[in-house]
């Protein structure tokens, strides 16, 4: 039989029961709508998080100290003293994939200015650190290579530190504060960066030349970390490999022995976080998919009732020449039309919902075409799958009994 005739027959049958058709579609509408909304919102939030991470610099590469075993005793990572400022020079000289690198020496000292004091998180770095970590200078200037060479007693401070030390609104620039016992002159103030996505205040920071921290505060000659930046996001893996081979050489690590350092990229952190949000998205989508399944069962239920109710109609169609497969096709088409129509309405509903929510929450609105395409196919499949059993029941009716069915 002609395809067009099948469509016409199924369409006429559905039009005869508009309300029922609409109610049957409702399950699919809600199912598809929520799947699309959930996936889309999940992706919006993932995108939000990754753009926040990108603001911290996706090119960033960090070299940490790894835990070490000395003479059979694991001394942890805190006591590893092998990371040196010369490593930074070696990395910069040895890898074309690294554009910038800075030593990092961390210290914690009480900062005192007049009657105010504040626990300072001190980072001893070089002049490249601010650019690597996407800090901007709001006023004043950055520390210079000369400052580093001379172990100058200068610092650049974040907004939180300013707010807590200069409560009367004095201009901090040029002021001398004390870090523990050491007087340091403020030469620059950082632009506020706010919290990072872990909730840490990125403005609670004091930047000093690393040499100053090493020599004048801690009296050490090693580094806690190296902060570097790859030439681009794409080569960050190459940069990691470069750093590993360079550091193994400078640290004289034998073949087969473990590294005494660990290289991490911002990209890895990003991947880890997106794994978490992706899992959440999948979880939400799975819950939504259950409602889609319920919608499909709704279609099966109604189609099943419909077959019983329309037994005489089926008998008549058979009497005037409908073959079994014509009846089967008619009922399959009816359920498929229902589910596809429901799917299309559900798509608009889902896209509308996710657009509204992401607008209200100020997230980036993500329209995922593959999800929509897959949902559409799933809809058609649901119609056929759940329509199959009732349709078979209809097709296998005996025309004689069907015609006389009361």
């Amino acid at each position, binding site marked *: 039989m002609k395809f067009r005739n099948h469509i016409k027959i199924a369409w006429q049958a559905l039009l005869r029961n508009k309300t029922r058709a609409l109610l049957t579609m409702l399950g699919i509408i809600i199912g598809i709508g929520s799947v699309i909304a959930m996936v889309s919102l999940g992706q919006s939030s993932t995108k939000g998080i990754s753009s926040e991470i990108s603001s911290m610099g996706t090119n960033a590469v960090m070299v940490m100290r790894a835990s070490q075993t000395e003479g059979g005793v694991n001394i942890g990572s805190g006591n590893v003293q092998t990371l040196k400022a010369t490593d930074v020079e070696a990395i910069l000289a040895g890898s074309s994939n690294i554009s910038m690198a800075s030593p990092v020496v961390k210290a914690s000292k009480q900062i005192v200015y007049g009657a105010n004091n504040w626990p300072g998180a001190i980072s001893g770095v070089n002049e490249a650190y601010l650019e690597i970590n996407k800090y901007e200078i709001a006023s004043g200037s950055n520390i210079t290579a000369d400052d580093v060479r001379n172990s100058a007693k200068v610092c650049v401070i974040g907004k939180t530190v300013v707010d807590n030390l200069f409560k009367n609104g004095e201009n901090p620039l040029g002021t001398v504060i004390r870090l523990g016992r050491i007087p340091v002159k403020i030469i620059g103030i950082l632009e506020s960066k706010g919290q990072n996505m872990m909730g840490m205040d990125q403005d609670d920071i004091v930047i000093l030349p690393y040499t100053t921290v090493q020599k004048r505060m801690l009296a050490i000659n090693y580094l806690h970390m190296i902060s570097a930046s790859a030439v681009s996001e794409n080569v960050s893996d190459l940069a990691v490999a470069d750093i590993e081979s360079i550091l193994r050489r400078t640290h004289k690590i034998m073949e087969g022995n473990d590294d005494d350092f660990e290289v991490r990229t911002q990209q890895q952190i990003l991947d880890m976080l997106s794994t978490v949000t992706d899992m959440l998205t999948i979880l939400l989508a799975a819950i939504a998919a259950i409602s889609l399944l319920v919608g499909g069962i709704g279609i099966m239920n109604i189609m099943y009732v419909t077959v019983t109710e329309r037994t005489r109609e089926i008998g008549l169609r*058979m009497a*005037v*020449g409908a073959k079994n*497969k*014509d009846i089967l096709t008619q009922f399959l088409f009816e359920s498929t039309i229902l589910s596809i129509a429901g799917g299309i309405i559900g798509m608009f509903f889902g896209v509308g919902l996710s657009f509204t929510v992401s607008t209200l929450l100020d997230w980036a609105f993500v329209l995922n075409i593959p999800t929509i395409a897959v949902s559409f196919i799933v809809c058609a499949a649901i119609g056929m799958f759940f329509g199959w059993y009732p349709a078979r029941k209809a097709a296998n009716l005996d025309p004689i009994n069907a015609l006389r069915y009361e």
Partner: protein
Amino acid sequence: METIIKIEKLHREFKMGSETVRALKGISFEIHKGEFVSIMGTSGSGKSTLLNILGCLDKPSAGDYFIDGISVSKLSRDELSTIRNRKIGFVFQSYNLLPRTSALENVELPLLYNNTVSSDERRERAINALTQVGLADRMHHTPNQLSGGQQQRVAIARALVNDPVMLLADEATGNLDTRTSYEIMSLFQELNSKGKTIAFVTHEPDIAIFTSRTIMLRDGNIVKDEGIKTLSARAALDKLPVSEDYDITVGIQNEIEN
């Protein structure tokens, strides 16, 4: 004369548990082109079984059934569907129209299952069929907007639309009052006079008198098969007393005359 239906030693048996019910016990007859045959019998006579076989809804257990020269006994379910679609026009007691569907679309239905008919031709043939039964002006009415007699006319139009070799009517007047029954019988007679072969299953003798031949069944056997003198249904209709509550135009006329 051309033979439309040929039945030879037709048996039909049903298994009911351990018992075998023999509904038809080897009957034979022929129906020729242009005949108007009534098949009569009380319930249990095998009348319905015969109707199902004539209508290609059922197959005989033994014996042969030819419709328009085709042996039905060996055909598959799908092939039977095609025979029903091309050769037979059914008219049922309870009309069996699709609800909330226009008369025209109801009449088009059998042609939807015929691939050789285009949608334009389908529409044209449905309009012709409706015109033949006198409902050209009711084409877009749905069954609940039509009277019983009109609904049965739509059903007859539906039976005519595929130009069948035989109309098969199953108690087609069973749900209608006398006047409407006569009107429907008059329509059948008119179609018969134009050459349509009609098999009319009924248990009412006063309906059978409008046909030209009666086959009487009892307990699965033919007890009588004879030509009868046909009465004109139109004449019978004219003799019926005019009922005021039935025909409103006549009622109004009477009022005016009074």
